[in-house]
């Protein structure tokens, strides 16, 4: 009874705290400018199913893809068992679904156990890749400090969680064989759990009944406390991709990657020179900044991108400029965007719902000019991202701000602009000479 009350309080507390933080993230994302993705619902759904649910883009690198798939599938399927654990927690029952589901129950829990072993192996491999093998994209400088700790905390948390599962199941198997488990005794001598029926007796076989009951309870409570902890760690972690990966792929850019957005506010200025009957698309009484200076100038999809990033660095490892030692790292662009957005969010929390200018901005204080001007706009980062994040969109918007609002660009680019403006080519050649090649042999 007391344990049921404690469990209920923990459940409500964990869910409530998670809900509050999710609301904050939603509020932060919606600080971005509006953009519409109501088109092509079928294609969007298909993209989400393939890229997020089916992990399609992960498989361009098979080894991490398989390891990741172990963790991913274990995580997804474990949610089914979680239903029983929550039910047991509230009702004070033990393996409440076992008697009614029979063989299906044994199959499901056994399947989850196998996936958990695979996830354990995957997690050890991931920890090794980060800390021992030092895979280049996982040890770059932008990961120093919190991002590195964040990644390791998640992995260690996953290992601990799996250990608790096997404590709980292993001890229960031994107790069941002694007729002492609180699970309904079906007279079959074993719970039939694929891994624990072997590992349980091996680890805990010689222990006293009392110790076994304690180990089983520590495993059960440890597991659920880890789950609640993990849930509430998510909003503060790069691990949020497990949730946002789905909507983020649904709202993917479905157009050719080479196509950049058209700025309607610019068209409204330029088009009347060519078409006197042109009707403006934007509200002249509500002028917006050209391009992006700070996170509020980005659209909400750019901001969702930032929260969806799990800092895997595939983008950065494919970036021609990063490969050749330049400061640009598409991953850092996404991390900076999230960091600045969270700073803006805290500012809003502190100032009763309104943002008070702190004199900072995304460009300058977070992203340096040399990062922005290094980009080749080659779309390698966009191509690589397993959850269809678009770092290039942010880079281009910042360039637009720097050029059109601040005239703060590289001097050679200004010469190029002048040439195009004066003679219709990026070099100093006269437009009248454009067809001179036709007279050469």
């Amino acid at each position: 009874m007391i344990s049921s009350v404690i469990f209920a309080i923990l459940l409500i507390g964990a869910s409530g705290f998670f809900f509050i933080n999710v609301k904050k993230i939603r509020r932060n994302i919606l600080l971005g400018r509006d953009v519409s993705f109501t088109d092509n619902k079928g294609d969007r759904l298909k993209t989400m199913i393939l890229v997020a649910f089916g992990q399609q883009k992960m498989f361009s690198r098979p080894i991490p893809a398989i390891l990741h798939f172990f963790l991913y599938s274990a995580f997804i399927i474990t949610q089914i068992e979680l239903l029983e654990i929550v039910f047991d927690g509230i009702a004070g029952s033990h393996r409440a679904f076992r008697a009614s589901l029979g063989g299906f129950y044994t199959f499901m829990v056994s399947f989850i156990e196998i996936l958990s072993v695979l996830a354990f192996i995957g997690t050890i491999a991931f920890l090794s890749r980060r800390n021992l093998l030092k895979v280049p994209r996982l040890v770059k400088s932008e990961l120093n400090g919190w991002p590195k700790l964040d990644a390791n905390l998640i992995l260690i948390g996953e290992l601990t969680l799996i250990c608790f599962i096997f404590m709980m199941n292993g001890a229960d198997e031994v107790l069941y064989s002694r007729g002492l488990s609180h699970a309904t005794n079906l007279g079959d001598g074993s719970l039939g759990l694929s891994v624990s029926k072997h590992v349980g007796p091996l680890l805990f076989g010689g222990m006293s009944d009392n110790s076994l009951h304690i180990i089983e309870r520590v495993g059960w409570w440890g597991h659920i406390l880890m789950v609640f902890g993990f849930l509430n760690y998510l909003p503060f972690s790069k691990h949020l991709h497990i949730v946002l990966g789905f909507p983020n792929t649904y709202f993917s850019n479905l157009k050719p990657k080479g196509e950049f957005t058209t700025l309607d506010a610019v068209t409204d200025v330029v088009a009347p020179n060519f078409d006197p009957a042109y009707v403006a698309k934007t509200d002249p009484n509500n002028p917006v900044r050209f391009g992006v200076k700070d996170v509020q100038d980005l659209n909400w999809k750019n901001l969702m991108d930032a929260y969806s990033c799990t800092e895997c660095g595939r983008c950065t490892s494919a970036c021609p400029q990063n490969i050749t030692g330049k400061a640009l790292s598409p991953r850092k662009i996404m991390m900076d965007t999230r960091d600045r957005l969270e700073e803006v969010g805290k500012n809003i929390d502190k100032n009763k719902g309104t943002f008070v200018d702190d004199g900072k901005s995304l460009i300058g204080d977070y992203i340096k000019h040399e990062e922005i001007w290094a980009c080749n706009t080659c779309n390698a980062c966009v191509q690589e991202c397993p959850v269809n994040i678009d770092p290039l969109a942010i880079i281009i918007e910042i360039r637009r701000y720097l050029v059109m609002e601040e005239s703060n660009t590289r001097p050679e680019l200004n010469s190029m602009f002048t040439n195009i403006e004066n003679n219709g080519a990026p070099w100093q050649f006269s437009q009248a000479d454009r067809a001179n090649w036709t007279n050469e042999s």
Partner: protein
Amino acid sequence: METIKVPTMAEMIAAGETPEILFWVGCSGSFDDRAKKITKAIVRILDHVKIKFAILGSEEGCTGDPAKRAGNEFLFQMQAMQNITVMNGYSVKKIVTGCPHCFNTIKNEYPALGGNYEVVHHTQLVQELINQGKLKVQGGEFKGKKIVFHDPCYLGRGNNVYEAPREIIEKLDVELAEMKRSKAKGLCCGAGGAQMFKEAEKGTKEVNVERAEEALALNPDVIAVGCPFCNTMMTDGVKHFNKEDKTKVLDIAELIATANDL
């Protein structure tokens, strides 16, 4: 080599004729000495298959691609609307470009500003001509040679055109080699995003050197490209390694025109 008469749109219309296709030459193809050779190769192919084509000549202006990639949307839209006004004035329907940047910009970014055309890159047109049997291709001097193709970003990733250039190369009876970073994983030559027009930012290596190194590791006779800017970057990269005698950098149009004595 004989000079082929290249009519401008204005000349054709004045003569009461309508071209099947507009050849968009682009700035590089018009002014850069190396790229002009690619332009002429494309003209020889168009002339050989007797397609009625025209250029805009002095009425053509930069598509605005480098301005747009560099963040100058004003300048881009000014250029785009000037070009659209000219092309709509001539009722242009179909365009072939000699450059993936012009191709991408006209195909994808002009429609929102009132310019709707069927746009193909020259490798797509050549592939179409071969498939239709209008262009018969043989390997000529390239027969048996090893050719590696470098994907231009704005043709490959930008517009998902990976096969047209490769199918053409294979028609030349050559060994088509692939770099590890090819197709969707292709590495940029270093020119895109207006980098062509500025000094590189501070780093440890030039992008074109990194890419040329990868291509040269395959020891090819030819590095084939489909973009005049890639051509410049890869040519410089090959020179960096003093391999210009062994490995040539050639556009697909040049491969076809040279191999078939067009």
